[in-house]
């Protein structure tokens, strides 16, 4: 993944943390946003649009464009640019819209 990365860090990271993206372990600088960490690791797309399936990756880096949506520890539609990386974070691409029907069935069972 890192062979053709679009971004590179200005210098070596003082500290790193391990996160997981699509099942692969990544070593990323501590204290950066998840979006920066993924871009710096050579991830080229982080979501598939809920409207038309188009591939997207972090763009505005300030919470506006919603191109960086990912699933984090089971929570869908997280904006990766607004989340700091955390050791052990498990991240998946956001594929399409979030499904709330399953969750509702659990409510009904209570």
């Amino acid at each position: 993944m890192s062979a053709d990365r679009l971004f590179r860090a200005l210098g070596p990271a003082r500290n790193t943390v391990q996160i997981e993206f699509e099942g692969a372990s990544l070593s990323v600088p501590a204290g950066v946003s998840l979006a920066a960490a993924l871009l710096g690791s050579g991830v080229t797309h982080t979501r598939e649009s809920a409207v038309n399936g188009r591939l997207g990756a972090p763009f505005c880096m300030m919470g506006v464009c919603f191109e960086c949506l990912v699933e984090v520890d089971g929570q869908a539609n997280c904006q990766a640019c607004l989340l700091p990386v955390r050791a052990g974070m498990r991240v998946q691409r956001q594929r399409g819209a979030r499904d709330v029907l399953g969750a509702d069935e659990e409510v009904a069972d209570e």
Partner: protein
Amino acid sequence: MLGVERATVEFMQKTDVMIVGGGLVGLSIAYGLALQGRQVSVLDEGDDALRAARGNFGLLWVQGKGYGMSPYAQWTREAVALWPRFAASLQADTGIDLHLRQPGGFQLCLSDEEMAEESRRLLWLRDALHGDYPFELLDGEQLRARLPGVGPTVVGGCYSPMDGHVNPLKLLRSLYAACRARGVRIINGHRVSAIGQHASGFELEAGDQRWYAARLVLAAGLGNRELGAQLGIEVPVSPNRGQILVTERLKPFLHYPTTYVRQTDEGTVQLGDSHESSGLDDGTGSEVMAAIAARAVRCFPRLGQVRLVRAWGALRVMSADGYPIYEASPTCPGAVVVSCHSGVTLAAIHALRLAPWIDGEFDDPALAAFSLARFNGKNEVRHVG
């Protein structure tokens, strides 16, 4: 009043019909007049204007409207009946799918009083329309069977097959494109500062520009009050604010529009239907947003774990009695005033029936009830809540 000599300025721009206001109302009429073969120009303000057309909820709503004024109920019914033809025409002209869906809609009732009031209004309307007004009253259990996911504290609801919804932003975009494709000149970024009437037409001034039109349609929303006054026409409209919240995109779970909650074609869910008297402030406030969110979660508990991504306020254009104003001015021949709420629902009938009437094609008896004459001698009632 502008001087006649100024009418000879070399930059004078002429048109058959000038429409002031490029929102859903103005553009629907412009499109209808263009279909009639008229040469039409639309004068529109800039991005800082108050714009109901960019803040609305997207319902094509019939049930409950026109309580106390059956011609409005009838007009609204006829509007939604014209919608499939209107949408097909726009799609043929622009290729834009408006995502028109008319599966019927639900009004959810959160208290027995609300249910009783809605029932009373719908029964009145059915009588007023001689029985031709389909709806069903559902208790909580029936409602939850028809609309899965409705919360346990919702006491019941009303369903009417007359209701539907559409993507209102795609509608606005499509009207722009269709008007342009049919030769309508849309002139943005001008706020009309003066209107003068001459024997043969109207002269409008905005900044250092002016336009001349044989006929004039005022469709400027809340601006109609001020513009009408320049022609000696009193237009009793005032703002009523609604706030809307929008959620993250969800897989389809709600296949019918409801008055408080609507899932759009692209997955987001709109929560709304607040009513506030807030002057010309189209902002948002946490108290009203919290109330909208709480009500939506009562209606559909699964929304309690969903994230909101946007919120906005917009101002409804409410006439003194809440019903549309369609006025072909007797004192100012050639000028027509159109002011209304529900610019989405009425878009089809504005294009396909109001525009031919404005064009003088026929006298439409249905429109008599909507003239300004009904306000003569009446004090203006302010709508609050």
